[in-house]
């Protein structure tokens, strides 16, 4: 069961090798990267008894991505329901499954959520670039080839780990916190007072629609225009989940592949959990922003980290 591999028969719109992200190098201008729905990514590894940050595959949308097993193995699928099939058998996320040599795993289209995570025993093999195996195409760093490439047809994805004790999810995967709910918790930031009163009212009392301009750098929200009295500011570090408001008044929530510093004023930052939830939203979905305190956000993040036992 060791030395196994999956062959990419057909690539979909986007599938990347990811781990927890690239840390300790952001001061060099290198983006964080890593699994956009870090919660589902961790559960995928947890199901196989892997280290929680072992390299897994982030499959966006599906779109016909087809993988063929070269040998028998136990894998885990978590996160979005992309109407995956093992040969012709429907494969629901949130569990481990057996795949036999020659069997094909196909990701068709989103039924719930946007990003699925496929974990393999011990994690995929990939060169460690600046401390991480995560692919960042824009920066030509990481991934299965080390140069930031997404999967293309003909690629071979290998792993060498043994399958340990497989586990069962302690909750219903369809009700996973990153797949359901409209409320995104936001910790207000230091420019919040520079927004007009009307804008603040609108920010927290409207339903925002996910724009189709959404990728791993950021997700635009469509709704009423927000106005900040600061049109721009001196560029400063951008945290994960920062909600920046450019002059057109439409917020952009910054995700894992965001640039490291930037100069648009910000309402604040989504909590890590809310950011993971947003990363599962499809264009057209509706969300609302709910202000929370730093203390509550920290406590809920701690609880979330402690749930992986």
């Amino acid at each position, binding site marked *: 069961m060791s030395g196994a591999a999956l062959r990419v028969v057909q690539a979909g719109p986007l599938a990347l090798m990811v781990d927890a992200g690239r840390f300790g190098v952001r001061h*060099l*201008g290198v983006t964080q990267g890593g699994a956009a729905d870090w919660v589902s990514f961790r559960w995928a590894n947890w199901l196989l008894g892997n280290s929680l940050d072992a390299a897994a595959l982030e499959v966006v949308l599906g779109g016909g991505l087809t993988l063929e097993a070269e040998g028998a193995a136990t894998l885990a699928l978590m996160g979005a329901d992309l109407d995956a099939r093992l040969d012709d058998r429907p494969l629901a996320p949130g569990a481990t499954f057996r795949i036999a040599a020659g069997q094909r795993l196909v990701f068709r289209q989103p039924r719930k959520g946007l990003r699925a995570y496929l974990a393999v025993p011990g994690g995929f093999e990939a060169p460690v*670039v600046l401390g991480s195996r995560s692919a960042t195409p824009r*920066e*030509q*760093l990481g991934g299965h080839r080390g140069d930031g490439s997404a999967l293309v047809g003909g690629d071979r994805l290998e792993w060498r780990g043994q399958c340990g004790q497989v586990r069962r999810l302690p909750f219903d995967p369809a009700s996973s916190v990153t797949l359901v709910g409209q409320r995104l918790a936001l910790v207000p930031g230091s420019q919040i007072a520079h927004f007009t009163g009307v804008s603040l009212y609108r920010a927290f009392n409207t339903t925002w629609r996910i724009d189709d301009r959404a990728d791993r750098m950021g997700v635009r929200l469509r709704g009423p225009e927000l106005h900040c009295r600061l049109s721009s500011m001196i560029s*400063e570090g*951008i945290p994960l989940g920062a909600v920046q408001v450019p002059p057109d008044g439409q917020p952009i929530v910054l995700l894992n592949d965001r*640039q490291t*510093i930037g100069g648009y004023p910000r309402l604040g930052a989504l909590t890590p959990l809310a950011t993971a939830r947003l990363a599962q939203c499809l264009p057209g979905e509706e969300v609302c922003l709910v202000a929370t305190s730093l203390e509550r956000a920290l406590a809920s993040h701690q609880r979330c980290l402690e749930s992986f036992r």
Partner: protein
Amino acid sequence: MVRLFDTIDEANMPWILAADRALREALGESLIDLVPSYTTLMLHYDCRRLGHAEALRLVESALARLEPATAALGQRHEIPVWYDPSVGPELARVAQRAGLSVDEVVHRHCGRDYHVFALGFAPGYAFMGLVEETLATPRLATPRRRVPAGSVAIAERQTAIYPLQSPGGWNILGRTAVPLFEQARRGEPLLMPGDRVRFAPVSREEFERQGGDTAPLEAAA
């Protein structure tokens, strides 16, 4: 977020560098990332190792004892640049706005040391300044989809070199053969905050001898 200043100034750098060092030391293993910029430092620490109150206390005590870095100001680099309209399509735009000849723009862009204020935008992308006031030129109305690696550009009073091909809206004046990306991808960018940079004009022959790519770039529409 640690805020030390509210304007861009070369005199900020010794303080930012000193704060960077002091905060790294104070947070030690609990530090995940520290992102210095022109006036601020953003801290990302591991909340499993360090409580928020304790983090604040460490930061405050590190900053209370801060002395500006003196000898610590970084290295000085001379970067050879081939200034030519074929690879620097905005030379004419900058010259026209400034009421100067292209030669005079080149002369002035090379005429002073620039400080590296911050890295960002892309691995190893150094924001440098300040460019002489007369050369200050706003960003392009529509950014280019592809700016070649090595392009040397200005925006307002800042200047930079694109380490790898990427989209970009700055005014491109020329190109250097110095390979910035390979070093950045090893985690050792050539240019670091606190460094000083001076550009030196070279001929096409010299640029080609250094391994430069002479593929022309069209002026932005």
